[in-house]
């Protein structure tokens, strides 16, 4: 299917001539005298992209260390398809090895402290490392303490699976073990949280699995937000057309407490028993951001200068991705983190060469969501820097959502994943 579709797209866009250039990695130029060192913490969509682009755009003159505690990259985007049973963990796992071809020094370790005054990063396994500039791409950490009873014991059976990895596998197993006729409960926190359309895609994936394998089962969505936060009409159309009688949606239904033993979640109005409880807690910038002192908003998010992604609180420290205090109408997405990384990489190369960052950065976003095994919907936006407001704003007339769900966008969605993984990891 892919081969046929690819050929069709190439012809349709007159890009066939360019396809011969597909293969090959970018060879780095001969090492020149280094002008400084950047340490990147966190090898997700933001950090891995920043590491690679810093090496490419500095033409090898900036020494780049990427500190990542996991051995491999596991993608959150597409991980809902693992829950649906349509992709495997192997499909969403990628190696960091190719980054070494760009001269990125990938170090498997964990940051235990940051001394921004002395410009040093403290690590668990190896000795401290000095830097000239620090890039933090810490992702989110989960605020379980905001939900009563969601303690360490409860977390053994009530999963969030909001970071792809072992919890993705464990939640899939819970769904497989659930009896036909059971209820899966998905609790969504108040926005902003990582991946606005993610929960609604997850509901679709699990409903699709139930429809096929356990047709008497239900999906109950308890949303702390008043309504679906992203692509609302498209998701609701899919629920009505494809999953009628399977998915039930309740807005304004924040889960405030859980009882893991009784398998119950509580809202202000109700106690609801479920067979599989999937409670996604509120989120904040990852712990590394705390250690660096760059959290500036509500004890949760990191304010940045949108010309460079440099922290508004700590000079020389740049923050990317979900951890940032988002600009207006800017989603916390993997795609956006990749865009943050390129903005930061360009700015850092300029700054370390004694020049000013570009005064007119642009970023864009596309989030694809699988509403079935093949059909997809998207939301897109383009953002430009507004000097008067000193932030990124959406360009009027740009962006929006799919006209309708389609299998064509299913092909694009998988293409998006393959291409962004290649863009960030080589």
């Amino acid at each position, binding site marked *: 299917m892919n081969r046929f579709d690819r050929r069709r797209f190439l012809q349709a866009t007159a890009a066939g001539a360019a396809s011969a*250039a597909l293969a090959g990695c970018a060879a780095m130029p001969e090492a020149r005298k280094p002008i400084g060192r950047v340490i990147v913490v966190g090898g997700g969509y933001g950090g891995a992209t920043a590491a*690679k682009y810093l090496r490419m755009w500095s033409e090898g003159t900036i020494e780049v260390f990427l500190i990542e505690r996991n051995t491999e990259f596991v993608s959150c985007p597409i991980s809902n398809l693992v829950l649906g049973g349509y992709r495997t963990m192997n499909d969403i796992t990628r190696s960091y090895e190719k980054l070494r071809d760009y001269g990125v020094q990938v170090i498997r370790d964990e940051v235990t402290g940051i001394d921004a005054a002395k410009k040093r990063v403290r690590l668990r396994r190896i000795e401290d490392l000095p830097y000239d500039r620090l890039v933090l791409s810490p992702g989110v950490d989960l605020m379980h303490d905001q939900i009563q009873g969601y303690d360490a014991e409860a977390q053994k059976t009530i999963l969030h699976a909001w970071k792809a990895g072992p919890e993705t596998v464990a939640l899939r197993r819970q769904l497989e073990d659930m009896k036909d006729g059971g209820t899966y409960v998905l609790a969504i926190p108040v926005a902003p949280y990582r991946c606005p359309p993610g929960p609604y895609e997850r509901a679709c994936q699990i409903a699709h699995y139930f429809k096929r394998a356990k047709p008497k089962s239900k999906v109950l969505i308890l949303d702390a937000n008043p309504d679906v936060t992203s692509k609302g009409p498209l998701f609701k159309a899919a629920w009505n057309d494809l999953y009628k009688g399977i998915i039930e949606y309740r807005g304004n239904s924040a889960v405030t407490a859980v009882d893991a033993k009784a398998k119950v979640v509580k809202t202000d109005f109700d106690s609801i028993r479920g067979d599989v409880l999937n409670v996604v807690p509120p989120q904040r910038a990852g712990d590394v951001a705390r250690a660096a002192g760059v959290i500036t908003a509500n004890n949760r998010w990191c304010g940045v200068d949108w010309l460079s992604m440099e922290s508004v609180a700590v000079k020389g420290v740049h923050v990317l991705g979900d951890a940032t205090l988002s600009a207006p109408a800017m989603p916390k997405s993997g795609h956006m983190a990749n865009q943050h990384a390129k903005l930061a990489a360009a700015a850092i190369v300029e700054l370390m060469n004694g020049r000013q960052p570009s005064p007119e950065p642009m970023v864009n976003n596309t989030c694809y969501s699988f509403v079935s095994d093949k059909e997809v919907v998207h939301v897109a936006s383009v953002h430009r820097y507004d000097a008067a407001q000193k932030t990124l704003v959406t360009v009027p007339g740009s962006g929006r959502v799919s006209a309708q769900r389609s299998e064509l966008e299913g*092909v694009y969605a998988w*293409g998006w994943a393959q*291409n962004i993984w290649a863009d960030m990891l080589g």
Partner: protein
Amino acid sequence: MRIPLVLAAAVAFPLAAFAQGANPNLGRNLAATCANCHNTNGKSVTGMPSIAGMPKDVMLGTLREYKEGKRPATVMHQHAKGYTDAQLELIAAYYAAQK
């Protein structure tokens, strides 16, 4: 049609850069915003078309048609509308210069 690639890129870059205030990396930076979906320097792995080495006029024409709603699209019209004509020209020039 493909012969004047190098020439087109060589001419377009300085002119466009001048028009934008002489930031020599502007085209590169703008083009990188496309790479999420089309891979680094436009060398798509699968799904989306590869745009590395696409002749500048072809790409610019395509992008303008997206922007003006004259070309069927799922998402590209929504992206093209976010960029100025000068920015689209820089992007087209950058990808034309990729091998």
